[in-house]
């Protein structure tokens, strides 16, 4: 998590109205579950497992919150991109 390589982590803003709620979290978790290594989502000092809906929910991200999506291995770059895309497009809501 301390790695600063920009290709292993990207900040993104929650733009959908409801924020990171169950359905949007489920979408992230679904993608993250396909990763070969761990995927993390960080908000401020808190970091949670992106593959867990409930974990994501506990971050309590409302609209406008900035989160950081982190991967542990460059092989999961497509996963990172997909998650960032999902968040940026407001989960298609």
């Amino acid at each position, binding site marked *: 998590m301390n790695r600063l390589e920009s290709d292993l982590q990207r900040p993104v803003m929650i733009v959908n*109205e*409801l*924020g*990171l*709620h*169950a*359905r949007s979290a*489920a979408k992230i*978790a*679904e993608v993250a579950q396909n990763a070969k290594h761990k995927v993390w989502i960080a908000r401020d000092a808190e970091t949670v*497992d992106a*593959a*867990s*809906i*409930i*974990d994501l*929910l*506990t971050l*309590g*991200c*409302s609209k406008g919150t900035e989160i950081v999506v982190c991967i542990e291995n460059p092989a999961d770059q497509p996963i990172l991109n997909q998650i960032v895309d999902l968040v940026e497009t407001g989960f298609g*809501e």
Partner: protein
Amino acid sequence: MLPTDDKEFELRGIGASPGICIGKAYLVDREGVKVVPKYFINPDRTANEVNRFKKAVIEAKNDLRQVISAMPEDLQQQTNILETHLLLFDDKMLFGRTVDFIGNDKVNAEWALKTVVGQIKSMFQSMEDQYLKERVSDIIHVSDRIMHCLTGAAHVKISDIDKRVILVARDLSPADTSQIQLERIKGFLTDVGGKTSHTGIIARTLDIPAVLGLVNATALIRNDDILIVDGNAGVVIINPDDQTLVEYEERQERYRAYRSRITRESHLPARTVDGEIVQVQGNIELPEEVVSVIDNGGDGIGLYRTEFQYMGRTDFPNEFELFDKYRDVVEVMAPNPVTIRTLDINADKTLSYASNGNEVNPVLGLRAIRYCLQNPEVFRTQLRAILRAAAYGNVRILFPMITGCAELIEARRMLTEAAESLAAEGVEHNPDIEIGVMIEVPSAVVIADHLAEICDFFSIGTNDLIQYSLAIDRSNRNVAYLYDPLNPAIIRMVKHVASVARRKNIRVAMCGEMAGEPIHIPILLGLGITEWSMNPHAIPVVKRMVRGLSILDARKFVKEIIDLTSAEEINRLALERFSAHINSGLVIKQE
């Protein structure tokens, strides 16, 4: 028989569906199992315990899948939520942690699950965002389902109820109500919810007494307690003594006899003794409620609230979905009229997908016609759906929250445009529908004469008119006492609107709660309003009331009250003059 050691006590809530029933309590606790036992598992048996948990999860998932597939089409919006719940079953936090907990602490699965859920709950409690904070309920729903499967035979499955009972629950979700075998249910009691909650609507539609919003019914009532539910008065009596029981049995009998008598004659027109026929119509929100209007002898639908189709979903309904719902209602009611009110919603508060910033004061904010005019795409879709449904029966359109002519002109222009686009596309529709204005803002009362020039009818919405005229927030307990349809200012406003309508030769209807209250009937008649729309269950009573009155007497009465200075005086005089009349029909309110 009766538990003699239990003292009779009473709870008061909201009478959401009228009627009286007596029966045994059946608790459907949201948390499912009241006491979760804790016991240790032999270390070499933990794998079995984990398997037991896994099996329960699979079973719970299958149950939920069945609920989803058995959901009637009208509740499809709910399935989205339930499908998200399906995903939660396998979540690492819930599933993974419970499995770990069983292994590490060597405890039974129920205890492990309860502990894990407790930890999750506390994480949510510290959140700031109210919406996200409430998402913990999704997790509780899911864990309840697992718990039900874990505890096996002891679990409460609504669809399995095999005796006639009174359901007591914190709240009933559409998924719950869709599983209920309703012929088994005598009555509904819930801790939360009111008249317009899903449970309230279902109860009224099915004619089952319901008292909702009891706050702590699930805490105070135990399984198999004897209950009396009085849905008219909003009262529940727990462990009634013999005397109370006898009294309510008699009341119940009287109420039944009364209902059946008035329902029998309800299909006949409501004609005053001097021959004036009053149109008594029903208000509905769900298409299914049309049945209730017909059963109660409604002469049409005076207010079809269209908001429900927009709620509990992730995007706006499309034209066909709306058209389909409207057509259902219109076809069933034809040739009687169906007045469809266009979307009256505060998008910011109620539609998650259409919210755009927080409004400090939503009641005075971007709602109803204002919202629609600023979101022409949303409005156009609805207008087209209404015009299409109009080809199948007698449709009238009603615009809510009109404050001035400009809004009405613009709404009409969009309606014409919608009709033209349908014509250009060759889609079947009926462009010639009556256009009405909701009179619910004081400014509309003042300029009623102008509005009358550009519409076909008025419909007075007393609920909002009272709120806006008297500057009271109806949900604020401190000022709720001011909310009275008999307030002299309100009566004068209604009188003004009625006389403008008469002068301009347009129809005037009333669709607020005021119309459904028997004691108000002589006043409305005297003011010259003879088209009313109300909760379907009030129709028979109101029709019966009309049959005993004469227009002439009603007019005289209005002359007497119009210069009184307080609602109390008006109410007292009305009761003095007409309560015998109401009582002859046997009161609906029995307090």
